[in-house]
């Protein structure tokens, strides 16, 4: 009977959440539509909800938006994968060898605060107007949080795991890193990648906007602005938001279901 009550109340809570969320979104849309149609009355300043919605329906059937999305994903993954491939090994050796940390840390602390977008001139000069140039900006945005989280994770590994491994015969640095340090630090490393993906996504629009590339969601958004098609600008803003959300949800799903299952209580 008790369990039944708890079940009921949980369902009730869920229902409440869904209903209030729906009301929230509806209020937002109605308010937006009302303000734009009756108060602002200028689609340059605030395109109405219905114009954005029509633009969405219209664009849905054209290839352009999908190409833009694919190109943006390409920029994002070019930068992201290179940031992971370069950032994690650097973070690992920094976290394991104190002297490597001492050597790299000053360089990293000097370069890290430079906003990734400040690298755009060099991205263009080094890589010309290519997808790789856009990728480089995302790389810069992502590599530092990955390095910092990796070495922080390494430096915070409970000593007991390393000692336990040593007395079991795992005494070489390479083996200790591979079998103990990386798994022990993996929650921290993965949360670094997740934070970095957020930063990388923020850099995407600007990397494409400043002409480093000639396609992509960010590029097209800027292009629509120059045409003053503000309803398309708003549409692309939402597309960026949803793509970012999708990437984060997918990443979390894959990680929590697979790599970090040992952290949860119910694994069997």
């Amino acid at each position, binding site marked *: 009977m008790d369990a039944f009550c708890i079940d009921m109340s949980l369902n009730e809570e869920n229902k409440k959440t869904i209903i209030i969320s729906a009301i929230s979104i509806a209020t937002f849309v109605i308010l937006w539509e009302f303000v734009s149609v009756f108060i602002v009355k200028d689609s340059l300043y605030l395109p109405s909800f219905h114009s954005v919605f029509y633009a969405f329906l219209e664009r849905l059937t054209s290839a352009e938006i999908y190409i833009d999305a694919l190109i943006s994903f390409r920029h994002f993954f070019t930068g992201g994968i290179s940031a992971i491939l370069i950032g994690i090994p650097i973070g690992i050796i920094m976290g394991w060898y104190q002297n490597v940390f001492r050597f790299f840390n000053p360089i990293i602390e000097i370069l890290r605060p430079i906003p990734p977008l400040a690298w755009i001139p060099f991205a263009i000069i080094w890589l010309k107007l290519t997808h790789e140039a856009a990728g480089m900006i995302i790389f810069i945005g992502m590599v530092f949080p990955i390095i910092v989280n990796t070495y922080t994770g390494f430096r915070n590994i409970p000593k*007991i*795991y390393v*000692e*336990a*491994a*040593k*007395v*079991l*015969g*795992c*005494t070489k640095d390479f*083996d200790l890193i591979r*079998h*103990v340090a990386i*798994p*022990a630090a*993996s929650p921290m490393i993965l949360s670094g990648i997740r934070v970095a993906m957020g930063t990388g996504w923020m850099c995407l629009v600007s990397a494409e906007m400043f002409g480093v590339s000639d396609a992509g969601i960010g590029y097209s958004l800027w292009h629509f602005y120059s045409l003053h098609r503000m309803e398309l600008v708003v549409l692309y803003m939402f597309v960026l938001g949803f793509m970012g959300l999708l990437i984060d949800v997918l990443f979390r799903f894959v990680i929590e279901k697979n790599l970090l299952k*040992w*952290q949860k*209580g119910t*694994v*069997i």
Partner: protein
Amino acid sequence: MKKAEIQNITKIFVSKDDRKSEVLALDNISFDLAEGDFVSILGPSGCGKTTLLRIIAGLEKQTSGNIIINGKISNEPGPKKGMVFQEYSLFPWKNVIDNVSFGLKMQGMKKEDAYKKASKYIEMVGLGEFKYSYPNELSGGMKQRVAIARALANEPDIILMDEPFGALDAQTRNKLQNELLNIWKNQKLTVVFVTHSVDEAVYLSDKIIVLSARPGKIVKEIPITIPKPRTRTGNEENEIRDEVLRLLNHEKYLADASQLSGE
């Protein structure tokens, strides 16, 4: 032949900030273990008993002296010196069987063989049903059982135990002591056991080594010949317990006195 010799171990801690301030932690500790010996180390807190065990394991460097196992100097950590820690030391990202077979795989044993051997030791500590559980699904007592199985799986020459039951409740503790004694008897283990519980030391050991307060020196070696399993409150047991407690109280008194007089 002597299984293990602890030869003249001295440890001086040098303060990192002030190189001149040195603390003598262990002062010329020597004792031997024959095959199948169960030796407990007792002493007031801060006497360096854990440091001594860590030096034997090779996890800490002695200032002078040697650890000799089977006639060979063995100052580095390795699979022939198994250790069970006081803290929970299982790898939380590995399930029970992967924890227990870790040392075997590290020595190049094939996964299949390692699993077979690991299973034997998991059964031995009574956790056959939990092979595929993760450490966070186990109780404290079960975790320490796995830790013991993990140390045993390597079939080390000597097992070092650093208050392995210190974090457990009294009932679990008694139960694990009995299980440990069974395994010790069947496997002919050579054990160095650090504890702060006099009862535990008297119940388990063939020899108790009582250390003094800092610097840790051997005050007395007390052999116990009462056959095992022992009773926890037998007359002979009580006599030994009284003697050990007297020694420890005296040591504590000396330590407090030296602290009062400003060292």
